[in-house]
């Protein structure tokens, strides 16, 4: 009974919210929660490339996560042609949710949470699009590990094109430098499932294994992906038996794809997904000193282009009049 009353209240309030709402045009705010601490006074600064302090301190987060190309030059992922059309709802939605013992509106969410961008779409229509911290629809936002899913999609496309012959092939078939290592004998499927079984710990504490990995691929004088991966050569479990979230597993998938298709990941992403998606802007992807894209992170794209990618996935791979990623 209580629950039923609660939903009725939600519905009424949601309708009331709709009546007050603005058209679903992009809305921009110069502020956001703790804006001062995020560097609003200095225009949300980006640390210089040679900055020796903590690049991920609060002061730099907004700047770095929306202008990652000022940290390192990024490889361009070109788009082409007219952008695919995203319609807009006549009024933006005003969803109401229960959290922390009270009912909140989506505007409360933005008031209380450090989101730089929040976009909701359905089908081909934008229902809500807001930016905070003086970010805009021209900024390109850093993927962090959302890029892992993009790398996974590229594996799927390479399989469908036959350049990767089988999902059960071992890595060394495509990356001969890793023959004889723990990763070399691991199947692509085990990597896709974060189940390589290598001894690797991703805790986001200083000196964990992702720090070790990034030290090899981020700095301009780092040794690059293959050398980075060879650091993780101890087997802790048989492949395909134990989940262990590992950026190294994804980095190896990136090597497999670029070797199998004989082109950089940025070019493969551009020709197979980004252009077909009708992205409105080029994406960018960090490449290591050996020219290999950092497959586990570090793609940038506009908020609406992330939405286009999500909508393509919601449509089982079909978007902009074509099947971009195979459904089956």
């Amino acid at each position, binding site marked *: 009974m209580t629950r039923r009353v609660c939903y009725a209240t939600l519905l009424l309030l949601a309708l009331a919210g709709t009546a007050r709402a603005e058209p679903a045009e992009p809305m921009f705010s110069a502020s956001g929660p703790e804006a001062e601490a995020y560097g609003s006074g200095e225009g949300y600064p980006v640390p210089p490339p040679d900055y020796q302090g903590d690049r991920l301190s609060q002061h730099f987060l907004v700047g770095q996560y929306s202008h990652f190309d000022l940290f390192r030059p990024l490889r361009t992922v070109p788009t082409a042609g007219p952008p695919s059309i995203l319609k807009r709802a006549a009024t933006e939605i005003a969803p109401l949710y229960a959290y922390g013992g009270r009912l909140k509106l989506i505007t409360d969410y933005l008031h209380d949470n450090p989101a730089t961008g929040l976009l*909701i779409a359905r089908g081909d229509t934008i229902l809500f699009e807001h930016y905070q911290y003086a970010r805009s629809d021209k900024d390109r936002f850093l993927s962090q590990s959302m890029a892992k899913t993009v790398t996974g999609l590229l594996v799927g496309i390479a399989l469908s094109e036959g350049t990767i012959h089988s999902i059960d092939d071992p890595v060394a078939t495509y990356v001969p430098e890793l023959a004889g290592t723990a990763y070399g004998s691991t199947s692509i499927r085990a990597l896709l499932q974060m189940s390589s079984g290598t001894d690797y710990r991703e805790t986001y504490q200083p000196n964990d294994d992702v720090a070790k990995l990034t030290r090899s691929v981020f700095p301009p004088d780092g040794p690059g992906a293959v050398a980075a991966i060879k650091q993780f050569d101890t087997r802790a479990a048989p492949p395909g038996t134990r*989940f262990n979230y590992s950026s190294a597993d994804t980095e190896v998938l990136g090597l497999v794809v670029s070797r199998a298709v004989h082109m950089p990941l940025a070019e493969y992403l551009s020709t197979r997904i980004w252009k077909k998606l009708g992205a409105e802007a080029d994406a960018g992807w960090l490449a290591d000193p050996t020219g290999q894209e950092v497959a586990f992170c570090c793609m940038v794209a506009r*908020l609406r282009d992330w939405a286009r990618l999500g*909508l393509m996935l919601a449509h089982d791979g079909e978007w902009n009049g074509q099947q971009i990623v*195979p459904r089956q």
Partner: protein
Amino acid sequence: MILDATTVPEDSYLAPGKLSPLLGYGYQVWIAKSVRRRFSLLGIHGQAVFVDPATKLVLVHTAVRLHPEATAQDLELVALWYAVLAQYGAK
């Protein structure tokens, strides 16, 4: 490929409820504990794209959370997403 990547058998160690209380894992994608197929792209500090193929609803969230990993802020974002699905899932 997308269906395989975003579906996991219930008895797999990767299934939602087994891997973690609310999330399972497909092919480089997180799978929600749900009666219908639903999944998400996730990145540290609050980056997320939630996808619900049944309703074609998508939520994109870019953020600058202070903690890299899951926090109570995730629960609030998920509460918002579930509300969007419940209130705007019908055409």
